[in-house]
């Protein structure tokens, strides 16, 4: 008879009690998704791997601060985003709560883009456009579409108000639409 797989909460509680295998099980379960988030945040795969490893180390050290009633992955993704922010800071300061200069959406920008290209080509160009976004916008895109977090979970992960999440996402999408139209 196969035993039921322990959920994240049970594994976290086990890890806190000193069960190393329980934490290793969390690593096995979430590293794939965490890498996808990190890869969206960072310029290359090597940097993304470094972020994943750093995030797991920070998670292990800070496991006592994790609220077991909250879902585990948003907490972990938040740690990875902070690790990425530390990397970005070495290049230029990044503040997730900084919404940047106001960009008023034009009627053209909110309208339907007339893109005369194949879907594959559009996706490829979209990838390029995402890579060119401001770091805080890329973080929100990664958490929303790679990690599939809710707005509330993104707000918790980035420690910003939920309205800032909406604004970052809105502006990121505007920038992407413009980027696609310009290419």
């Amino acid at each position, binding site marked *: 008879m196969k035993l039921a797989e322990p959920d994240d909460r049970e594994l976290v509680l086990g890890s806190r009690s000193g069960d190393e295998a329980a934490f290793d099980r969390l690593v096995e379960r979430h*590293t794939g998704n965490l890498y996808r988030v990190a890869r969206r945040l960072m310029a290359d795969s090597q940097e993304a791997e470094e972020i994943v490893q750093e995030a797991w180390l920070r998670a*292990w050290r800070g496991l006592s601060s994790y*609220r*077991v009633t909250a879902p585990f992955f948003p907490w972990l993704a938040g740690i990875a985003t902070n690790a990425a922010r530390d990397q970005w800071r070495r290049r230029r300061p990044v503040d997730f709560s900084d919404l940047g200069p106001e960009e008023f959406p034009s009627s053209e920008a909110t309208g*339907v883009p007339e893109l005369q290209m194949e879907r594959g080509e559009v996706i490829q160009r979209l990838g390029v456009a995402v890579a060119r976004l401001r770091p805080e916008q890329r973080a929100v895109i990664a958490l929303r579409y790679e990690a599939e977090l809710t707005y509330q979970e993104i707000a918790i992960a980035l420690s910003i108000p939920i309205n800032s999440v909406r604004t970052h996402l809105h502006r990121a999408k505007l920038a992407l639409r413009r980027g696609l139209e310009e290419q």
Partner: protein
Amino acid sequence: MTNDWLDELLRELSVEAPPADLVIRVRHRLAKARRRARWVSRASSLGATGLATAAAAILMQPLRTVPSGPLLGDLGRILTAVAAAPGTVLMELPLQVHGWAQTLESGMLLTWVSLALPAAAALAYLLRVDVTEDGAAL
């Protein structure tokens, strides 16, 4: 095409798959961090034990010449006195401790304090109750 179209594309946008050995590498790094943490913990314990032993050794030498105080006196006599008149003994205790402490040299008093502080910290650590943020004791 609407915003839903962009949402759909963003969901479709895929990054390359994680390297096959990434989980193993994360585990290795964690294992290394755990080993380091254990080493630091053991080294701290050994250091504390060494300090406590040294302090005790320093303390034992001059202690033989110190007049018996409330902590070193005849335990049976003290217990009898407590049983007979607990209130009086309790009232006199601070004075007796104070008088006894005055007979000690300042260096020795420092040694007592240096022994008492880690002992109190160790006791507090042993008695602590871990509580999760949802209120459950671990």
